[in-house]
């Protein structure tokens, strides 16, 4: 989401006002970035009912830390980084309760998936296939370690480039590439294990 010059100037003004204690100037910043934060939270956490609460906590954190914001990265990157870190901490906290098992997959989903695997239709997916795949890959993602889940979500669901992910996670682009490679590999191995278990 590229901002025009006046939008950037307005954003900078709002940030400076908040830094000088005018909390009402935080409103326009929230309005500008709320959808981005909701998207990150939803894709990372995948709990629809918790998105708004988590987003609120993230903006509260950003507000408390805004005096430390020094304009070196864009405000979008800065606030997204807070969101990613907050979700990461949340996922670690609820790790035990979010364990997802293959057995939770419905018979129908499993059947759809196997049919798809045997003869992938070139013309795209119908609704049933989409739901089955979404369900299954969502479960694979839930089973993945937090670090894998982070890079996979940012790349595959948020559609960030490797450089953008590197900026968000404060890593080198080469490190992000390696993590992405490993995360995909682990996910495919997990899928293979599932196949073995079903045989």
């Amino acid at each position, binding site marked *: 989401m590229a901002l025009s010059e006046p939008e950037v100037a307005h954003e900078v003004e709002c940030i400076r006002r908040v830094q000088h204690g005018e909390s009402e100037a935080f*409103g326009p910043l929230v309005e500008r970035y709320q959808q981005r934060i909701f998207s990150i939270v939803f894709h990372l956490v995948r709990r629809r009912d918790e998105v708004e609460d988590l987003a*609120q906590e993230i903006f509260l954190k950003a507000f408390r830390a805004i005096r430390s914001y020094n304009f070196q990265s864009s405000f979008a990157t800065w606030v997204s980084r807070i969101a990613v870190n907050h979700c990461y901490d949340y996922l670690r906290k609820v790790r035990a309760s979010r364990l997802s098992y293959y057995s939770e997959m419905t018979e129908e989903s499993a059947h759809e998936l196997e049919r798809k695997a045997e003869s992938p239709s070139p013309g795209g*997916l119908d609704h049933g296939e989409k739901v089955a795949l979404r369900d299954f890959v969502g479960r694979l993602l839930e089973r993945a370690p937090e670090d894998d889940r982070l890079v996979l979500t940012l790349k595959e669901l948020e*559609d960030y480039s490797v450089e953008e992910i590197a900026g968000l996670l404060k890593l080198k682009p080469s490190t992000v590439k390696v993590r992405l490679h490993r995360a995909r590999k682990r996910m*495919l191995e997990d899928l293979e294990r599932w196949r073995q278990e079903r045989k």
Partner: protein
Amino acid sequence: MECKAIRDLVNELWGGELPAEAREHLSKCAGCEAFWRDARLVQAGFRALAEEAVPEASLGFASRLVRRLQEWEGIGARSEFFETVGRRFVYATLALTLAVLLSLALPTTGPVRGVAGADFLGLQVASQATQPDVLGGDLGDSHDLIPGGPSD
């Protein structure tokens, strides 16, 4: 190409077009073909996940948040005040407790306390008449150290 190289390539290209050499390998190797198919499935699954509608912020989310921030600021300032006052109260209580404990722990007699202390300070003259003799003598026994005592 070896199987490991093919799988790395599938992972690396992730949805991109495989080179002819790799495609030829896939046509002969069932394991790598299954791996490639799984990768395609996962990619399709990710696309389906990405298409899922993201929940939107409820109406007035930003203004509610700012109101909460302002409340929090007020509470924050108040709690800072109470924290400072509370901390001082705790320190004062601790100091007082320490003083009381020290006063209880000190011996009841000694150079700065009790009868001997009074001796030391030259105050016994005034209290002599009312205090029993700590050396075991009858009330009013003399002490040589006190000039002008009852023995004089």
